[in-house]
């Protein structure tokens, strides 16, 4: 990272030295595969032992392995949005405890400072330095790390959309040793649990994370011992070069130029005005430069996006596009440059509130694709519903037992040159699943009245967008909720002449039948008998709707994806000459 005037440029680890001749492509492939496998083993260990469904069912976590220079060796498929932030977590966590020299074998560090993690404090990182023991020497060789969503770590509310500084957002552990030489630091451990509304769940999840980082450490050491440290290190250099070359080859195909995309946040959470912003994508040979310098000033409400989160959004967007469909490593990040300006929405300065930093990041991914579409529309889909339409319910059961439950929800995906969009989670949470109604109802006093595709909610096009979903949550007891429905003021855009889709929306229907619209709200009172209704957005269309095959229009009507009225309006060609479905 270096400053140029008042802007900051962030790059992936710079290109490595020319690789030693012994790093043959075969050993490199075996090392690459073994490291990805090690990350998968960490992920499985975490999933199997985690306490809260948000980790096990929703996969709200990331696991990764770094080398000693803090370069990403491997990560397991999990929450893409966390992936790009992890190197910042590790770097800051190690600096906080006093640098490399202060690390001992068996140490495990807890770190959740939002400006270092690029997440809210609930997304706590656990970092374990890995030491190779040989002939009595202990050499630091890398780090295993997990960032996972804890149900609660003491924010002003279990989930909040209206914080005004970072201190309202949760208890901060700025890099503390949770284990010293394999022994749990009891005082710190008790302090963590004392700061949670849900200490039992958090304790279970911490134990799962400890199991996970230790599993990963063992797998990393096995890989290193298999080849010897020297061969391992040269293979890793070659592996990074391989990742870099994959992404560079992709961008070499794209025409050079500067392309600007624009997005808008509904509000900053404490004031009601929309917050528009621009992101520019500059293709320069094989380098992609993502420029956030035109972003608005940092906000009073919690939509500020700390630098690690901004970098993550950029890396997720680019590696999904150019990474050849594979799990990225540090090399994939090298061709990506991110330019930000401190004091702005995408590079706020502490203690600006940032609890909802994931939401501008989600928007940024769509806006980057919107910008790239201007250069090559075939490379990206049209806009999706553009949000994860999250909800967090909480309350106390009649027994007095506190409870909290939350989930993101699928939206329609944009149509693209290969076909219609589907209905699934936003790409920033591509591996995430929403919980089954039958499991949800067995645990919480919520009755699901409806989980159904919404006809006509897609953008029209040669390839139409995916449909949004209607989710109706009916309260069987009094409860409260924090809703995080974004992108309600702007319809998802189409590409190449494709039409706009239905934007996200939500409303609260009270027992007396009255309703009111909901966007981002904290501690929304939902009395027994009320229903919270979510209408998740559709995907934008791709290509001129008039080019859509009439047969497919008729099929969509037959299957109930489109009403005849919608079809007649957008696809008149399907009815030319009196044709009817």
């Amino acid at each position, binding site marked *: 990272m270096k400053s140029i005037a008042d802007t900051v440029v962030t790059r992936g680890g710079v290109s490595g030295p020319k690789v030693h001749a012994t790093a043959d492509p*075969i050993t490199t492939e075996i090392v690459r*595969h073994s490291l990805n496998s090690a990350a998968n083993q960490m992920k*499985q*260990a975490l999933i199997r*032992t985690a306490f809260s469904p948000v980790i096990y069912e929703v996969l709200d976590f990331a696991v990764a392995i770094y080398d000693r220079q803090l370069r990403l060796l491997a990560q397991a498929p999990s929450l893409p949005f966390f992936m790009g932030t992890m190197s910042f977590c590790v770097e800051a966590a190690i600096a906080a405890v006093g640098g490399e020299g202060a690390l001992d074998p068996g140490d495990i560090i807890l770190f959740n400072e939002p400006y270092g993690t690029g997440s809210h404090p609930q997304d706590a990182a656990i970092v374990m330095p890995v030491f190779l023991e040989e002939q009595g020497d202990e050499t630091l060789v890398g780090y295993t790390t997990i960032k996972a969503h804890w149900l609660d770590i003491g924010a002003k509310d279990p989930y909040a959309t209206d914080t005004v500084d970072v201190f309202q957002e949760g208890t901060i552990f700025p890099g503390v040793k949770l284990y010293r030489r394999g022994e749990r630091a009891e005082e710190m451990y008790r302090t963590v649990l004392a700061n949670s509304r849900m200490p039992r769940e958090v304790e279970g999840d911490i134990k799962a994370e400890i199991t996970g980082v230790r*599993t990963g450490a063992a797998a990393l050491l096995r890989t290193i011992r298999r080849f010897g440290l020297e061969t391992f290190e040269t293979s890793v250099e070659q592996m990074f070069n391989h990742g870099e070359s994959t992404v560079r080859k992709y961008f070499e195909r794209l025409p050079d130029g500067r392309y600007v995309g624009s997005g808008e946040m509904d509000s900053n959470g404490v004031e009601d005005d929309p917050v528009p912003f621009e992101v520019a994508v500059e293709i320069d040979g094989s380098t992609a430069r993502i420029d956030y310098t035109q972003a608005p000033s940092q906000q009073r409400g919690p939509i500020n996006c700390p630098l690690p989160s901004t970098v993550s959004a950029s890396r997720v967007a680019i590696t999904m596009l150019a990474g050849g469909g594979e799990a990225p490593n540090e090399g994939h990040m090298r061709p990506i440059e991110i330019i930000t300006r401190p004091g702005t929405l995408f590079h706020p300065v502490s203690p600006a509130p940032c609890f909802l930093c994931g939401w501008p990041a989600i928007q940024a991914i769509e806006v980057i694709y919107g910008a790239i579409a201007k250069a090559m529309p075939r490379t990206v889909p049209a806009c999706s519903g553009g949000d994860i339409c999250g909800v967090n319910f909480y309350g106390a059961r009649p027994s007095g037992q506190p409870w909290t439950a939350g989930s993101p929800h699928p939206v329609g995906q944009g149509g693209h040159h290969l076909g219609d969009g589907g209905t699934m989670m936003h790409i920033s949470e*591509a591996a995430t699943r929403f919980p*089954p109604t039958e499991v949800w109802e067995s645990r919480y006093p919520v009755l699901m009245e409806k989980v159904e595709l919404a006809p006509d909610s897609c953008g029209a096009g040669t390839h139409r967008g995916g449909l949004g979903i209607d989710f109706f949550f009916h309260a069987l007891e009094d409860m409260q909720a924090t809703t995080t429905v974004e992108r309600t003021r702007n319809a998802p855009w189409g590409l190449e002449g494709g039409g706009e889709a239905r934007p996200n929306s939500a409303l609260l229907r009270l027992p007396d039948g009255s309703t009111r619209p909901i966007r981002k709200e904290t501690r929304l009172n939902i009395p027994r008998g009320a229903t919270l209704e979510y209408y998740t957005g559709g995907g934008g269309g791709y290509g001129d709707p008039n080019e859509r095959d009439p047969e497919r229009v008729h099929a969509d009507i037959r299957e109930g994806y489109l009403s005849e009225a919608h079809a007649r309006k957008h696809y008149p060609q399907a009815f030319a000459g009196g044709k009817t479905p």
Partner: protein
Amino acid sequence: MATRIGVDIGGTFTDLIFFDDESRRLVVAKVPTTPDRPEVGVVAAVGSAVPSDVVARTAYFLHGTTVGLNALLERSGALVGLLTTEGFRDALEIRRGDRDEMYNLFWQPPPPLVPRRLRLPVRERVMFSGSVRTPLREQDVRRAAEVFRHEGVSSVAVAFLHAYARPDHELQAEALLRECGFEGDISLSHRISGEYREYERVCTTVIDAYVRGRMTSYLTRLEAELAELGFSGNPLVTRSGSGSMTFGEARERPFETIMSGPVAGAEGAGALARQLDLDSVITADVGGTSFDTCLVLEGRPQVTYEGRIVGLPVQSAWVDVRSIGAGGGSIAHIDVGGLLRVGPQSAGADPGPACYGLGGVEPTVTDAALHLGMFGSGTFASGTELDRDRAEAALRKVAGALELGVGDAARGIMNIASANMANAIREITVERGIDPREMHLFAFGGAGPMMATLLARELEIGSVVIPPHPGNFSALGLLSSDLTQAAARTRIMPLDRGGLAEANRILGELFTDLEARQTGRVASQADRLREVKFDLRYVGQEYTLTIAVTSEGGRVEITSQAILETFTREYERTFSYVMDDAVEIVSVRATLRTPLPNLALTQISTSSGGDRERSLPAYSFSKNRTLTFRVIARATLATGESIEGPAILEEETATTYLDADFRAQVDPSGALFISPSEAPL
């Protein structure tokens, strides 16, 4: 003891194996699979390999079939109609919202098995507790029946929310459909699965409805053809969740046959592990296109309770076989970033590896192994001669691009393939907190014995077992699969006296249902074993561990404290810590097992004479150079005989590559035990 025939239908070949109780002979045969009418291939195999007097006294015909799987793969099942709770007609299409390929911006889920116009809502609602919130509206079912009739639906799935807690509405819907004159098949979700998670249960019910017609008519035709050949014993099909069931039951529960073919190898490994008294085994089944691995603990393949096939969940007992795209036919290529990759693309059986000379030009694992001399003479007993020149020409493509010699490239391909397989084994063992170094590795499938010592080195495993007839081992596995029925029900309750009483009540119902499913002539009630398992978890945790619970004839008599202790031990072994929290029962599982008469294999020497031994150069991965390998016909080895590597053991269906620093010994069972030379056998 009993004479029995096993027939396993694969993509390319239909494998037959039969054991004649009188002559104590085991005979194997292979005929081409006849995909359009698979029973034709089955009958051809039986007709050609088994004398008719033996057919007449055969007690069991055991079958591994891919008919149901193929209906799913080819999307050639029935036109299905689905009745759902109003508000949930799209569960099948929305799924859980995730992507199978998370780094693929353009990923699309496969189209739902039931089109939306045939997924019809019914106003009704049952709660998790089993109470009725909204009674079923009969007119909704009648209206749906009219649509189904109009559309020509031949099979209906009924899947209402929480039906496992109260099946009344599904039963009511079934009666109404019949009342309206619907004569096709009906699948009710609570009969398919008693567990919660609506997408998974709906999907499984729909799969059942989708394959039912094809499966039923296939089994009926096959049964008739077998009768014509003189067979009058019990025809059985292997289940996805281990064990086998009668054709009659398979017609009622066709979804349980989806993985019938692929699990046979794991079943065989279980039987062999029991015979050899080996507690912890991991399988390495290396075929043409895939590498399949499965844990076999205490003589049983590990079973999971949610399977996945062609991207669809199957909520049913499921032998936990993990598969990666790495087999003998896997193609080596240079990726966009310049690394050598092996698989997942495969040359399959057609054109096959370049060395088959059937038109394949891409270098495969088999080509690399041939080039390195790992196949010995390179002539299969079937007469197929492998073409070294074609293998080398294909390998030259990747060697040139990497600026390597052909030999280096071939070694690289083998090393990458074995590392990928070893990683798959590590992942499946680490999930259960097991160290692969403490396991026995069973290597079989056409290419398993070739990879065996490479995998042993990679995983530091001290004991490898090559079963008899490794290339036909899946069919052999069929011969030893017990007759089983299984059912489960989700009911969350504390693990205490009250909870156990309720569990016993549920078990009583489950076993009554299972007994009623016994439609064959297989065995008397006295021979049936009742097995009980509980899914347990700490209160508040989501993930459950499935724990076998000792029972007296299917009734749990031990205390909750004893069960808690087993759970705690198993939990600690898997996760390396335990909690102080209370434990609850989530699901209760009942299995009815009727063991078939024991099939104890003994070594049968079928020496065909000829050269006992030659020697050929081959590459040694242990020594990193080419050595002289003895080439020996496996069948000429006597029981107890020990062979030091480097050696290559040839037999009809596979080639065992015994690297230097390894030693093989022939067990009385006919299996080869391989271990590092310095280790005591």
